[in-house]
């Protein structure tokens, strides 16, 4: 659809490091601006935006290590810092609640759903891009439309479907429904990657007598590893983030995922609940942040890849 644009689009590495493929010098025209001017027009607004973007996380982390009495007494202690950090909230969360179970559930659901989706998407994307069966283009379009169907209009009928199939209140309800969100996205992403693999490689292999399956596993997949990683971590993030299906399809506390469990099971009438709530939110997002730290480029390529097509 947009091959011409995709051809000159920046690679994710470039997006992050800022070297545009068409730029021949890194400084650009910025020498035209004086330092005071840059301070006001660039560093100041950027600083404010970054501060606003990051403050909730700082507050989350700070709250989770503050002692209870400092949490609610904003006058005696400076609210922006604490000199007596405590691990009480975190240990309470890990040893007195079912938090580890919820973490495990989330991890299990995310890994299984992502795995299933990647397998299905690789096959589908390869078939659409390279097998070019009759109607492949239409199927590609349909998959893009499926990407635009949001979970919030599907959860009501889906809950009756899940009930009919006997999956209600089991992890399978989530493992089998999450792929509907993930498959359209990752198929679309992988189609983009497969298109970049030279067709000649496959022709050579075909002449040498390789079957389509061998071509896929021996030639295409090894070359598409960056795309696979992007699809995998992005799907994993989406799974971890999913809320409405998990809220609707799971009712037993020990099957809940972290986002749902925090909202439904951890919120109680306790006035001191904020410490453990924030600790729960922090630990719940930690796996994704760590993953993100290692694969920043892949995230960016997944994001831009999804809109580029």
């Amino acid at each position: 659809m947009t091959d011409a644009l995709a051809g000159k689009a920046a690679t994710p590495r470039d997006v992050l490091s800022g070297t545009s493929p068409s730029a021949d010098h890194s400084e650009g025209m910025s020498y035209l601006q004086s330092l005071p001017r840059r301070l006001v027009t660039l560093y100041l607004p950027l600083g404010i935006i970054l501060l606003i973007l990051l403050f909730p996380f700082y507050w989350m982390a700070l709250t989770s290590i503050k002692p209870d009495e400092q949490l609610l007494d904003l006058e005696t202690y400076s609210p922006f810092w604490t000199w007596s950090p405590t691990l009480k909230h975190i240990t309470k969360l890990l040893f007195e609640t079912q938090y580890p179970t919820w973490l495990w559930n989330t991890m299990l659901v995310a890994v299984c759903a992502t795995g299933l989706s990647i397998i299905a998407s690789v096959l589908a994307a390869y078939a659409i891009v390279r097998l070019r069966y009759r109607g492949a283009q239409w199927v590609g379009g349909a998959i893009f439309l499926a990407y635009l169907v949001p979970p919030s209009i599907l959860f009501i009928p889906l809950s009756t479907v899940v009930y009919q199939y006997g999956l209600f209140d089991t992890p399978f309800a989530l493992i089998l429904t999450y792929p509907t969100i993930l498959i359209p996205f990752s198929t679309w992403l992988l189609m983009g990657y497969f298109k970049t693999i030279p067709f000649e490689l496959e022709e050579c292999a075909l002449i040498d007598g390789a079957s389509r399956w061998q071509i896929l596993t021996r030639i295409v997949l090894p070359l598409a590893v960056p795309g696979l990683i992007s699809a995998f971590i992005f799907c994993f993030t989406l799974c971890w983030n999913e809320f409405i299906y998990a809220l609707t399809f799971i009712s037993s506390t020990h099957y809940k995922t972290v986002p749902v469990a925090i909202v439904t099971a951890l919120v109680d009438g306790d006035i001191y609940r904020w410490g453990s709530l924030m600790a729960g939110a922090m630990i719940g997002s930690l796996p994704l942040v760590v993953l993100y730290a290692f694969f920043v480029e892949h995230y960016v390529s997944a994001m831009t890849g999804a809109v580029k097509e």
Partner: protein
Amino acid sequence: MAIALDQSRTKREYRDVNAWTRLKANSNWLGFWFMLPAAAFLILFLAYPLGLGVWLSFTDARLGREGVFVGIENYDFMWDDTVFWLSVFNTLLYTGVASIIKFAVGLYLALLLNENLPFKAIIRAIVLIPFIVPTVLSAIAFWWLYDPQFSIISWSLKKMGLITQNIDFLGDVWNARWSVIFANIWRGVPFIAITLLAGLQTVSPSLYEAATIDGATTWQRFRHITYPLLTPIIAVVMTFSVLFTFTDFQLIWVMTRGGPVNATHLMATFSYQRAIMSGYLGEGAAISTAMIPFLLAAIMVSWFGLQRRKWQQGGDND
């Protein structure tokens, strides 16, 4: 005779093998098997429920009970329901305001990040963090930031002498609306900024140099170079943004559950309340189905955005 029979058999075997090999190489046949897993998922858990949802909206189904066809009764009821219209109003307000601000701030942030900065890579990586952290978990952080008694925002404003009373962020009708809209903007800006940044980097710097030599101001450079070249990607990004803002559920559910007095109910949270909390699946399905026309409108916008991109490139790329 025997020889002839033998011959015909070999011939047939040969043909059999040939047919099988041909079938194996037939792209339609192979394509069918390759598509099967994805198609099975999407048909069983996406297409079928989508149709079922429309059907449910014409029945009086309850949670755990099959419904019977009742015609447009649910829609009729919905039409006279003030809370439904309030939720439509809220959804449009939420989507409209949040999308416009997200776009403006996102574009501004993208332009800032496109400048030559020290520690560029790290800053850009940091910007994306709100997008990575699960929405529910950051919504909880906002819930705490918006606490009526111990909100750090109220505290800071009081210390600065700007207000005397704590702000009741989530308890007052309009405060609650602006608060959830702010949280949504906060969550959505990084996505827009980073995707637009990717688009900005495809713009050749020589265009800016040429324009500067011709005496163009900063605004003119933006208006006549950056913006036109960025329109295609803006169209796509904003379609996604509008779509996901319109169907938002998580932020609202965590922070207000639609309250106070339904002031922040979006159509998605309202349908959840009707269908799952109260058990009226039919009514809930009708509310969800009422969202579909809006989504189609968003998809049309995306479609025409893509058309325009084709036209701009002057090519007939597939």
